[in-house]
C-alpha cells in the first residue's frame, strides 16, 4: 500500500512537473534516473524549493537495463544511480564524468571504513556511494531456534524443500565460494569447480532459486531459511517478529548504489548540487529511514529517530565492511560464472 502511494505520489509529482513546465517562466530541470522507492520525495521537494528548479525522476529496475538505455543514446539524464560495478564499466567506457570534488563539500563526511575496505572507486573519482546493502540469511527462529552463523545451513537435509537461495549467479556462486574460503570475485576455475559442487549439494535441499517469492514465502511460513537482500528482508521483519537473520561467519556479499553524472548531462551544475544536498548528514538520515539501507555518511545517526539508531540495516557496523565483499565486474571472465551457473541449473 505504502509502495502504491509512493508511486502515485511520484506520478503526481511528475505530472505537476510537466504542468509547471507548460506555463510561466521555465525553471531549470534536473532529470534523475534511479531505482524505485529509493529517496524521500519530501526531500526532493525541499531541493526544488531551495534551488528553484524541477526534479523529474525516472525509474529503472536493473543496472543492465539502465546501461543499455544510456548506451543506445537515451540521453537527457543529468544524474544516474548505477551499482558500483556498473559505475566502473560506465566510467571505463567514458559514459560518466570524472567528479569535481570542489563542488561536493559533503563528501568529507563519507565513511572511511566503507571507502578504504570495500569501495571499488575508493577516491570517489567518478561515483559517490549512496546506499549500501548486504546479502544475509533470514530464518524462522520460532521453528528452528538459534542457527549458527554459517552458510552450511543449506546443507541441512532436515530443511529440505523449505529453503531458498537467490536466483543470481554471482550471489549464489559467491556464497559457495565464501563457504569454501575463496573470494567472490575469483576467476580461478578450480575454485569455481569447488563452488559448483557445493551448490549442487545444497540444491538437493532447496525449494527453488528465487529473487521475488522468498519475501512472501518466509513471511507465510512456506520457507524457513532464505538467502536474501538486507533492505528487502528488513522490510519483512518489521511485521514478522518470528523471523531473524544472520551474516555467515565465512563472509557475505555487499553492494552499493552510487550517484554518477552522465557525460551527456545537460544540467551538470544542478546534478552536483543535488548530490551534495542528499549527502549531508541530516538529509542522508531521512533517506536511511525511508529505505532501510545504509547511506555511508558519518554523523547521520544523530539525525534518525531514537528507535532506529541501532537498526542493523540502516547502520552497518564498520567491521562488517571488513568481512563483507563487494561484487565486481569480471569482464570477459563473467562467461566462466555463466557456464558454472548453467551447469548448476542442469545438475540433478
Amino acid at each position, binding site marked *: 500500500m505504502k509502495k502504491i502511494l509512493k508511486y502515485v505520489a511520484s506520478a503526481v509529482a511528475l505530472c505537476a512537473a510537466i504542468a509547471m513546465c507548460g506555463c510561466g517562466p521555465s525553471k531549470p530541470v534536473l532529470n534523475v534516473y534511479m531505482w524505485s522507492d529509493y529517496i524521500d520525495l519530501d526531500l526532493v521537494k525541499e531541493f526544488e524549493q531551495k534551488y528553484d528548479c524541477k526534479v523529474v525522476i525516472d525509474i529503472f529496475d536493473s543496472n543492465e*537495463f539502465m546501461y543499455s538505455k544510456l548506451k543506445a543514446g537515451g540521453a537527457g539524464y543529468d544524474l544516474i544511480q548505477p551499482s558500483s560495478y556498473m559505475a566502473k564499466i560506465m566510467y571505463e567506457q567514458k559514459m560518466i564524468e570524472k567528479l569535481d570534488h570542489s563542488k561536493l563539500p559533503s563528501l568529507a563526511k563519507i565513511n572511511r571504513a566503507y571507502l578504504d575496505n570495500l569501495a571499488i572507486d575508493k577516491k570517489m573519482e567518478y561515483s559517490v556511494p549512496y546506499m549500501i546493502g548486504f546479502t544475509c540469511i533470514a530464518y524462522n527462529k520460532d521453528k528452528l531456534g538459534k542457527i549458527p552463523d554459517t552458510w552450511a545451513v543449506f546443507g541441512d537435509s532436515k530443511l529440505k524443500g523449505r529453503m531458498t537461495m537467490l536466483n543470481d549467479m554471482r550471489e549464489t556462486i559467491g556464497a559457495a565460494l565464501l563457504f569454501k574460503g575463496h573470494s567472490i570475485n575469483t576467476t580461478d576455475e578450480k575454485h569455481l569447480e569447488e563452488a559448483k559442487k557445493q551448490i549442487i549439494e545444497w540444491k538437493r535441499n532447496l*525449494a527453488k532459486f528465487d529473487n521475488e517469492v522468498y519475501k*512472501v514465502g518466509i513471511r507465510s511460513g512456506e520457507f524457513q531459511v532464505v538467502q536474501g537482500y538486507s533492505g528487502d528482508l528488513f522490510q519483512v521483519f518489521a511485521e514478522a517478529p518470528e523471523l531473524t537473520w544472520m551474516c555467515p561467519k565465512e563472509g557475505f556479499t555487499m553492494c552499493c548504489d552510487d550517484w554518477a553524472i552522465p557525460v551527456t548531462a545537460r544540467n551538470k551544475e544542478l546534478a552536483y548540487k543535488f548530490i551534495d544536498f542528499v549527502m549531508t548528514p541530516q538529509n542522508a538520515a531521512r533517506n536511511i529511514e525511508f529505505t532501510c539501507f545504509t547511506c555511508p555518511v558519518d554523523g547521520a545517526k544523530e539525525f534518525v529517530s531514537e528507535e532506529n539508531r541501532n537498526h542493523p540495516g540502516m547502520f552497518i557496523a564498520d567491521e562488517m565492511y571488513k568481512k563483507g565483499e563487494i561484487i565486481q565486474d569480471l569482464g570477459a571472465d563473467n562467461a566462466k560464472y555463466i557456464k558454472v551457473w*548453467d551447469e548448476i541449473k542442469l545438475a540433478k
Partner: protein
Amino acid sequence: MADDKSNFSARAGAKRFTEWLFTAPSLLWLAVFFVIPSLLVFAIAFKTADPAGGIGPGWTLDTFANVLRSDYVSVLWRTVWVSCAITAICLLLGIPVGYWIAQQREKYRYWLLLVIIIPLWTNFLIRIFAWRVLLHPDGFLRSALLKLGIISDDVFLLNNLGAVITVSVYTCLPFAILPIYAAAEKFNFSLIEAARDLGASRFKAFVSIFIPGIKRGIYTAIMVVFIPAMGSYAIPDLVGGVDGEMLGNKIAIRASANRNLPEAAALAALLSVIISVPVLLVFLKQKGVLKNVINIRRSSGDSTK
C-alpha cells in the same frame, strides 16, 4: 455496353481502394510492432556480443551454433514436453466442458461461459500467488493429503514441474474451452443421435462423430494453449522449483543478468521457429490454407461473443 464495363471496373477499383484503406492501419500495426521487431531479433542473433552488455559491430554464426549445444537441448526438451502436457490436459478437460455447455439450453449457456471468463478478470499474477497459498506446505490441501496417507512427508505440492503444469493448465483452460465451445455450438447434435440409432455406443459416437466435427475448434485450442505455454516465463519463475527453468527464463537471464543480447535473441528466434512448426502443421492439415485461416479467425471471433 462499353460504358457499363468501365463503370463497373471503376467501381471495383474504388472498392479495392477502400478495402486497402481499411486494412492499412492493421497492416501498419503488424509491420511496425510485429514484423520489424521479429526481424530485428533474428538479425541481432547473428551479431557479436560485447562483454559490457552491448551489441558488437561484427557478424557471427557462433551464437546459433552455441544455442544448439546439449545443455540448451535439455531445457528445450523440458519446455516442449511441459507445453505438450499442458496442451493435452487442457484438451482433455476442455472438450467435455465445451460439449456439455453446447448441449445446455441457450439461456444458460451464456451464464456458463461467463463463469468461465470471470476468473480472467483477476490479475494473472494475483491468481498465481493464490495458487501458492492453496499449495502451501502447511496448507489445507497438503495437510489433508498427508493425513490421508496419499503423499509422503518429502512430497511438496509447490516448486516443482507438477505445480508449473497445474497452474499453467488453470490459466490456459478458459482459452481452450472457448474455441471448442464455439465449434461445438455449431455442431449438429442430431448426427450423434443418428450414430446412436445405427448402433454406436455413446463413447464411440463422441469420439468418431463429435470430435471430428469440432476439429477446427480443437486446432485453434491447441494453438492458443501451446504457443503461450512454450513462451511462459512467469509461471515457472513463481511456482517452479530448482529444476523448473524453461526457455523463457533462459532468455530473460541472458538478456538481463548475463548481458548477452545476441544469445537471448538466438534463443528467442529458435523459440519462434519451434512455435511455427505446429502452426504450419495445422495450416497444412486442411486443404485450403487460406480457407483455414479464415475459419480459425471466424471460430476465435465467435469465441469472444
